């Protein structure tokens, strides 16, 4: 059991190295080459791996917080509608750019730069979804967040944002529809801005440190509200902190890679199987597992782009890897009963 930290860390670094060394070659037709890159290629691959690792770790950490907050093993960053909110923010931004460009003749790329690509709109969208979810999830009279109400609010927000996206999409020209289509698949780019990576990495580090600092209280919060209160843990403050941390982490990761599902759901479960439910260990292992899973998914996406001519979207890959893994974990625990 004690070997899991070095093993998972080694696994994560190993897949990162494999991803770093895997790339296309055109020497004798297009093929995969395993070699340490250099020059521009090295920079591009490092950026992509760093983005995948940061997004995977953020989503996984967010999943740990949410599963604790909602006391629900099926909770993940997307169940609260945060991803839907971020995606709707981007879709509305593209819609506004389209209208604005038609009126003023301003090039799209200038407008894109004003919104820092999709970063600003997705962050604002996730923040608005978070506020809406918070407002709807409050338990009247008690003044704190009710897990059941929060989940219901999240489902409603996801449904509404999905419908709004479809509505806006139907009004857009073909070019913008294609942009939205590509965004919603999720994509980790080699040319993700450094400031965005550093910012998200900073958010991840702060959230991780706060989580570790209150690891004991997170363990206690897994018990019932009354038991937690009798042990001196303020559930009100705890839920608020968890909610804000998970929202910020999700918003930051959606800003980098678009909506990528399943990482936040599956990685906390894998980590729990490895090191048990103690949050002091879970909070260390879960981000590493998340980073490794997304790096592997991204590697397969890159390789499929070379071998099959069309890259399999990274969101699809995480679901394809995570789904059977989740089934295996479920089977292992319940034996299909």
């Amino acid at each position: 059991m004690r070997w899991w930290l070095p093993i998972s860390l080694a696994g994560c670094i190993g897949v990162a190295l494999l991803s770093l060394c895997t790339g296309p070659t055109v020497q004798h037709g297009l093929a995969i080459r395993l070699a340490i890159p250099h020059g521009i290629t090295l920079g591009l691959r490092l950026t992509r791996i760093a983005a995948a690792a940061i997004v995977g770790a953020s989503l996984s950490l967010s999943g740990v917080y949410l599963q604790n907050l909602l006391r629900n093993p099926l909770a993940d960053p997307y169940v609260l509608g945060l991803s839907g909110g971020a995606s709707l923010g981007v879709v509305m931004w593209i819609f506004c750019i389209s209208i604005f460009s038609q009126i003023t003749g301003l090039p799209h790329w200038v407008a894109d730069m004003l919104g820092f690509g999709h970063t600003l709109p997705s962050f604002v969208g996730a923040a608005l979804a978070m506020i809406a979810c918070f407002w709807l999830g409050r338990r009247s009279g008690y003044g704190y967040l009710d897990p059941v109400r929060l989940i219901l609010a999240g489902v409603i927000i996801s449904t509404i944002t999905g419908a709004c996206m479809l509505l806006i999409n139907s009004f857009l020209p073909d070019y913008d529809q294609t942009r939205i289509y590509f965004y919603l698949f999720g994509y980790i780019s080699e040319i993700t801005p450094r400031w965005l990576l550093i910012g998200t990495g900073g958010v991840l580090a702060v959230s991780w440190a706060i989580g570790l600092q209150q690891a004991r209280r997170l363990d206690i919060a897994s018990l019932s509200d009354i038991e937690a209160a009798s042990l001196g843990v303020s559930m009100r403050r705890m839920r608020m902190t968890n909610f804000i941390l998970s929202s910020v982490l999700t918003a930051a990761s959606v800003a980098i890679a678009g909506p990528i599902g399943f990482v936040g759901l599956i990685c906390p479960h894998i980590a729990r199987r490895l090191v048990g439910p103690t949050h002091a260990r879970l909070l260390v292992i879960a981000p590493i597992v998340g980073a490794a899973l997304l790096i592997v998914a991204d590697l397969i996406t890159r390789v499929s782009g070379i071998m099959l001519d069309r890259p399999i979207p990274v969101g699809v890959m995480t679901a394809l890897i995570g789904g059977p893994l989740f089934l295996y974990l479920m089977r292992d625990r319940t034996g299909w009963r």
Partner: protein
Amino acid sequence: MSRTADSLTIFTMIYGKYAARMLTVMALIGVGLTVLSGCHAKSHHYVFKSKSGHEVPRIVSTVPAATQILLQLRAGRSLVAVSTYDKPLLAGRWRKLPVIGNYLRLNTELMTELHPSRLILQIDPALIPADIRSLCHRLDCRIIDIKLNSVADLEHTTLRLGAAAGCVGRARLAVVKLAREIRVITRQAARVPIVPVIYCLSTNPLRIVGGKNFMDDELRLAGGRNVGRQLGDGFPKITHAELLRLNAKKILVWHPESVFHHAYRWLQRRYGGRVCRIAWPDADLLTLSVVHKIRRINLLIHAPATDRAGAESAPALHQERKRRPA
């Protein structure tokens, strides 16, 4: 402060004992890196040289029509990668060309590996994504943004592509030949009665050829009158009721997929012998073979209506095919 100190103590207690193992793992990773560095291979780029020893431009084309024009100009050697949309239209050794992605999302790493000198796009200059601009700037690759909205654009675009691929002479000859052939078919079209036509690009949903595009030009040059123009420019989506209201004499259906689709069968039932199925795969591309396509459309729309749909197989077309070399 004391709480933070407590947390640090707990953290050290739990993870401190892993330090030796972590060091072992790090050492193993170091060994792995050293082994991998042995696999290091220097990057080589294809450098094509012409017979005269000049370096051939390295072109990445994301526009299927531009790729076809380059191949028709016999400048295929300068192509180093194509888009995902090109692949089904290529044959022979050109099918082995690497696929770079599409006009919105390029494979950055493959672009870096190929190091092209020209990138062909067909997009409004204001819509070119910022990341593609910056990538091209970094690779010192010139963006050639072509326009192929009407048959008239073909001449200018062919000359631009010829200049980009280093075959200006061949491009000029092709343009002169094209202009001559278009003059001939324009004269021929003036001598035959004009037929009201609808050109369906897909049957479910129903998308037709509207006004102000090269397919509308093709119909006009083939001696038809595109009644779809009434419903807007470009390629509007319409309902079946609107299609009935247009009252065309011939319905051209570009339908390279199944003829058993219920939407296509509905057209067959409703219009019978007036439905002509266009089976050539590059019908939606404007290339130097446009005159040949216009002639084929001319034969389809002026052929007498038969009981069976699918005038592509009309005897006149077969004669035309026999007459023309492949």
